[in-house]
């Protein structure tokens, strides 16, 4: 058994401003194993989308990676030249974004785009590429794929477009798919179909997935492991069932309790006081301490690192331990 498919080590992302650099990601580390689905969950501004963008070299300027390493199959990809990185994207890492239209060219038929992508990355002639395009669309659950090859993106509904994007992301048989809020723009009924598809089709292709979302429900239904982010750092990471049912970090616990659900008690929703900090005012020590019911003086001064607590790793001086009084 070789090492993990993707290794992210102490990743840092800065945004230079007139008043100095804002640190948007501060020492993010995690692995993704071959065939694994890792969820990245967090609220807006936590840095989850930035993590994905930094890995595939698509950070919006002036944001830049200011430290750390990203390794794909043991090879560093964070320091690759632009052209080499472009080949990694598509061939070895596929991307799916929230708005399918950002991934599709409105001026070309989807058949053209699929065939183009296939032939860029794989040694296929036009006829073989076309056959493969039809097969990919069929796997993505598109009815009558042959007929749809000649259609333009605007002729598809939102859900169908996202199916096309999934087909496109899988075209070159990448080892890793980075999916950033792939179902957020879709209606709930369509969302369920896309989640099911994403899970099934990536398994069939043996691809790993990094699934970025704010939706705990999507994470719970899809992922093997989950990383919870807050203010540019991972605060808890572990197997999805453990993180959901036995969270060690007070933020994870608060987040889980605040999610409205279809079952469970109809008591008042648990709420976390306050709001997420702005990047230019991230509290010292543990960034969550102003909102944390368990915060102590140590939390305001010393930053906790990820450490094993029962079956997850949490960055907290006072983690929630099962069987211990809160």
């Amino acid at each position, binding site marked *: 058994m070789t090492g993990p498919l993707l290794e992210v080590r102490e990743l840092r992302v800065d945004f230079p401003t007139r008043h100095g650099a804002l640190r948007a990601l501060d020492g993010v580390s995690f692995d993704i194993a071959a065939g694994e689905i890792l969820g990245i969950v967090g*609220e*807006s501004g936590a840095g989850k989308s930035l993590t994905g963008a930094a890995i595939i070299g698509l950070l919006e300027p002036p944001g830049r990676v200011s430290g750390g390493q990203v390794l794909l199959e043991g090879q560093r990809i964070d320091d690759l030249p632009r052209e080499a990185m472009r080949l990694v994207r598509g061939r070895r890492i596929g991307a799916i974004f929230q708005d399918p239209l950002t991934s599709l060219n409105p001026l070309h038929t989807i058949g053209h785009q699929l065939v183009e992508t296939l032939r860029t990355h794989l040694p296929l002639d036009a006829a073989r590429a076309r056959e493969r395009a039809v097969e990919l669309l069929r796997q993505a659950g598109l009815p009558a794929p042959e007929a749809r090859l000649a259609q333009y993106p605007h002729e598809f*509904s*939102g*859900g*169908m477009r996202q199916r096309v994007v999934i087909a496109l992301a899988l075209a070159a048989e990448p080892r890793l798919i980075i999916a950033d809020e792939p179902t957020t723009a879709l*209606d*709930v*009924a*369509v*969302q*369920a*179909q896309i*989640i*099911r598809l994403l899970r099934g089709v990536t398994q069939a292709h043996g691809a790993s997935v990094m699934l970025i979302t*704010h*939706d*705990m*429900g*999507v*994470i*719970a*239904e899809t992922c093997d492991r989950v990383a919870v982010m807050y203010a540019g750092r991972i605060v808890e990471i572990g197997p*999805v*069932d453990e993180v*959901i*049912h036995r969270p060690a970090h007070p933020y994870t616990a*608060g*987040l*889980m309790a*605040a*999610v*409205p*659900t*279809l*079952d*469970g008690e*109809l008591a*008042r*929703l*648990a*709420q*976390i*006081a306050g*709001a*997420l900090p702005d990047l230019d005012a991230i509290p010292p020590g543990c960034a969550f301490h102003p909102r944390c019911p368990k915060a102590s003086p140590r939390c305001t001064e010393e930053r906790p690192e990820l450490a094993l607590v029962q079956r997850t790793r949490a960055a907290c001086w006072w983690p929630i331990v099962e069987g211990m009084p809160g």
Partner: protein
Amino acid sequence: MSESRAPAPERAVTAGTVVVEARGLTKSYALRRPLAERLLRRDGPRAIAAVQDVSFAIARGRTLALVGESGCGKTTLARMMVGLETPTGGRACVEGLDVHATLAGPADAARALRRRMQMVFQDPFASLDPRWRIGDIVAEPLLEQGLILPAQAGERVAALLASVGLAGADVHRFPHQFSGGQRQRISIARAIATGPAFLVCDEPTSSLDVSVQAQVLNLLADLQRERALTMLFISHNLAVVRYVADDVGVMYLGRLVELAPRGELFGAPRHPYTRMLLAAVPDARGTRRERAPVQGEVSDPLAPPPGCAFHPRCPHANERCRVERPELRDSGGVRVACHAVEEGRL
């Protein structure tokens, strides 16, 4: 139309506890097509029916939630209820007054009614004027309505901000200095300023993070209890609706397909579409319950299917469903528009 002129809105309410009523409410939009197409087809103007024949009533202090996928007409319906859209058929009534007739009538009555109904919108970044200070934003409806003198504004605004959990010192700040959740609190303070009886909330937490969403939902619940607010709550999120609604209406392509008390809707959903929506909600607690897969997408509202509009996605559809539109009928305290339910096939 005499009732629309009634000077004291409170009067009509004494007849019953119903504060808000929709009666056969309908909204269709005419579609303009290119001239050539109109000449060639010769089939006259076409219309898109955003809302069709929707009726419901909400009692004082209660919340009706409307759910459905995008394009089902729930926002159009909400806007008609407070007079922001004019119905092409049917009536919206608040405290016994026909909303549109009253707003089009004498200025005094229109103004009195406006004070009694308010709306909170989805996007707190778009609904607050960025050039106004918070104090002015919240005081504006009070001054515009002539409910207070400018000298009294400071005190009233401070009280309103306190009631939504904001500090008095916030009056001097601008919207951009607040987070999304705080902005939605400001919108709510403004909406309750004039002492409305009826509050429409259109996806009030959809753009908020989950930890902040809980704060806003709890705040709305508190305000409703303190002020006996009657609410219409629009949402695409069934789990959120479960926490706020007394009754729930499910809309599909402009029509109500099920209207039920909360317990019935979540405990024993009748309409196949309601069941499908419930099955589609991702399960955050990770119970891994097995659910029926969801089929298809909403049909094109420009060419709605004949018969029951849901039939192309419905696992229980038969020939009757394809040709005959089901009416909303009572079925043990629940109203459902479904042949399969009516025939006992489901």
